[in-house]
C-alpha cells in the first residue's frame, strides 16, 4: 500500500482535480432535477432536453455576441443569461400547460408526460439547431490555463475547468441551501417538499410554489447545459445521455436533497476519475455501481429520510 501510494500519489492528486471538476458538472446536471422532484414528485425526463436546449442557447448567444464584435468577456455572463432565459421562457409554459393538467393523477402518467415532452423537444431542438455539433469555446480561451506541478513536469489545466465550473457549482449549492433555509420563498418550497397537505393547510399557495420551483429547476438544467457548452460539443442525443446520469444522482442522493446531490456528484466525479486512471474499463458503469451500493446500504438514499409507514 505504501509503495503503491508513493508511486501513484501524484497521479491521485491529478485524478482528484479531474474528479472535482467533473463532479461540479454532474452536480449542475442533477441539482435542478432533484429540486423539482422534491416539490412536484415528478421525475422530469425532459430535464435532459432542457439541459441540451440551455447548452445550445448559450452557444448561440455567445456566437451571436462574437459575430457582432462585442467584447469577449461578455460570453461569460452570456452563459447565465441564456440559461435564465430558457428557464423563464420554457419552465412556466411546461408547468402550466402540461404538468398542472396531470396534477393528482397517477405518478406514471405524470412521468410519461415528461417522457412525451422529451420526445417532442428532442426533435424540436434538431429543427432549430440542426445536427452538426455546435460549440462556442470563447469562455475557455478567454480564461487561459493554469499549470499544475506534477513531479518535474507541469500539467496544464484550463482555468475554466479548474475554477469556473467548481466555483459556480459551489455558488449554486451554497446559494440554494441559503435560499431554501433563510428566505420565505425557500421555506415555502421546503414545506411543500416535506408535506404538501400540511403546507396548504398553513396557507401556502402550493400552485405558486410549484410553478416557481419548476421554473428554477428548468433554469438550473439549462445552466448545466450552458456551463458545459464551452467545453462539450452539442449534438442530437445529448439530452438522452444526460438524463440517465442525473437520474442516478437523484436516486442516490435521496429525494429532493440538495446536499445529497452534491455528495453524490462528488462520489461519482471522483469515482469516475479514479476509474479512468486505474481501471478505465469501469468508467462507464461507475454511476450505477455507486447508486446500487448506496441503495443497498441506505434504501432511502444518502440523505433521504425513511418514509413513515402510513396505515
Amino acid at each position: 500500500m505504501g509503495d503503491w501510494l508513493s508511486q501513484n500519489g501524484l497521479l491521485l492528486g491529478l485524478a482528484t482535480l479531474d474528479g472535482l471538476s467533473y463532479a461540479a458538472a454532474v452536480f449542475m446536471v442533477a441539482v435542478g432535477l432533484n429540486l423539482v422532484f422534491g416539490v412536484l414528485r415528478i421525475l422530469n425526463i425532459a430535464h435532459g432536453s432542457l439541459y441540451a436546449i440551455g447548452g445550445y442557447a448559450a452557444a448561440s448567444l455567445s456566437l451571436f455576441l462574437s459575430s457582432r464584435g462585442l467584447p469577449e468577456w461578455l460570453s461569460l455572463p452570456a452563459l447565465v443569461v441564456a440559461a435564465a432565459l430558457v428557464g423563464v421562457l420554457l419552465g412556466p409554459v411546461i408547468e402550466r400547460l402540461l404538468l398542472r393538467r396531470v396534477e393528482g393523477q397517477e405518478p406514471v402518467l405524470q412521468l410519461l408526460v415528461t417522457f412525451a415532452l422529451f420526445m417532442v423537444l428532442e426533435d424540436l431542438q434538431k429543427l432549430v439547431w440542426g445536427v452538426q455539433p455546435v460549440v462556442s469555446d470563447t469562455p475557455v480561451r478567454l480564461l487561459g490555463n493554469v499549470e499544475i506541478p506534477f513531479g518535474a513536469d507541469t500539467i496544464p489545466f484550463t482555468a475554466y475547468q479548474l475554477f469556473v465550473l467548481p466555483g459556480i457549482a459551489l455558488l449554486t449549492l451554497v446559494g440554494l441551501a441559503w435560499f431554501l433555509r433563510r428566505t420565505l420563498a425557500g421555506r415555502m418550497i421546503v414545506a411543500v417538499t416535506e408535506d404538501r397537505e400540511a403546507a396548504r393547510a398553513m396557507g401556502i399557495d402550493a400552485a405558486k410554489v410549484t410553478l416557481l420551483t419548476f421554473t428554477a429547476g428548468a433554469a438550473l438544467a439549462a445552466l448545466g447545459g450552458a456551463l458545459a457548452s464551452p467545453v462539450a460539443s452539442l449534438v442530437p442525443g445529448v439530452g438522452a445521455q444526460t438524463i440517465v446520469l442525473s437520474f442516478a444522482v437523484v436516486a442516490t442522493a435521496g429525494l429532493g436533497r440538495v446536499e445529497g446531490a452534491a455528495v453524490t456528484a462528488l462520489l461519482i466525479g471522483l469515482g469516475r476519475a479514479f476509474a479512468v486512471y486505474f481501471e478505465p474499463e469501469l468508467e462507464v458503469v461507475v454511476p450505477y455501481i455507486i447508486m446500487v451500493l448506496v441503495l443497498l446500504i441506505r434504501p432511502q438514499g444518502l440523505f433521504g429520510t425513511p418514509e413513515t409507514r402510513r396505515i
Partner: protein
Amino acid sequence: MSRSTEILLALIGAALVLALAWAVPWLRFVMTIALAKGLAVLGILLLLRAGQVSFGHALYLAFAAYAVAFGASVVPETLVLLPLAALGAALLGLVVGLFVVRYREIFFGMLNLALSMVFYSVLEKFYAITHGTDGIRLPPTTFAGQTLSNEAQGWAMLVLALLLSLGFGALIRAYLASPMGQALAGIKTRETRLEFMGISGRRVLLAAYVLSALMAGCGGAVLAMTTRHVTPALAYWTASGELVFIAILGGAGSVFGPFLGAVAYELTRVYAAALVADAWQMILGLVLLLVILFAPGGLWGMGRALLARRRSA
C-alpha cells in the same frame, strides 16, 4: 365486460392481426414485433397494478434476445430456444427481484433502470463475445424440427407470438382476479394494511416481478427470432421507456391494453417515419401527450367509453 365477450374480442383481435398480415405482407413483421413488445408490456401492466413503474424492463427483453442469439448456434430450434430464454429471463428476474422488491416508487424505477444500463454496458464491454453495438446476427432456426422457408418462418413466428399473447393474456387476467392479483392492488393503496393481514408485500411483488420478467423474456425471444439481429440498444433506457409508453397508450385497465397499445405504437411509428423521416419522434410524443391529457385510460379506455356511450344511446 363479460368473460365470453372478452374471449370473443380476443379472437376477433387475433383474426384481425392475421388478416392484416396476410393483406399487407410487410406488416406481418411489424405485427410480430408489436406482439412481442406487447408481451413485455403485459409485465409492465402487472407491476403498474402495484403502483410500481419499472424503467428497466428492457433488461429482460434484451437478456432473452441475447440468450436466443447465443443459444441458436448450439440448438437452432425455436421451440427449445424460446422457453429456455424465457426461463433464463425469469431466473434473472428472480435474482434481481429479490433485491429490487425491497424498494418502492422512484427507487424501484431507478434501480431497474440502473441494472438495465449496467447490462447495456456489459454487452458493449465484452466486445470480444458480443460484438458490441454491431450486435449478433442469428443463424436460421428450425421450427419443431422443420427447416422452414423465410416466408413460412415469418408466419410461424407471428402465430407463435399470437398464441403466446392469447395465453399470457388469459393467464394475467386470471392472475389479477386471484388473491395474488388483488394483493398487488393492495401494495398500491396501502401496503401496511396488506401486511396487517399477514401478507408479505415483498413476496406478492416478487411473484409479479418474476412473472413480468418471464413475459418480457418471451417477448425478447420472439423479437430476436423475428428481427434476427440483436444489439445492446435493446437494453438502453429509452427501450424501457418505450414499454411504459405502450402500457399507457394502450391503457393499464385491461390485458387488452398492452397489445392494443403495442400495435398502435408500432403502426404510428412506422407511418410517422414514412411521412416525416426526421420528426417521427415528435409525432409519437404528441400522440402520447394527447392520450394522457384527453384519454388517460388509454386506447382501451377510449374504446370502452365509446362502446358504453353507444349502448346507452
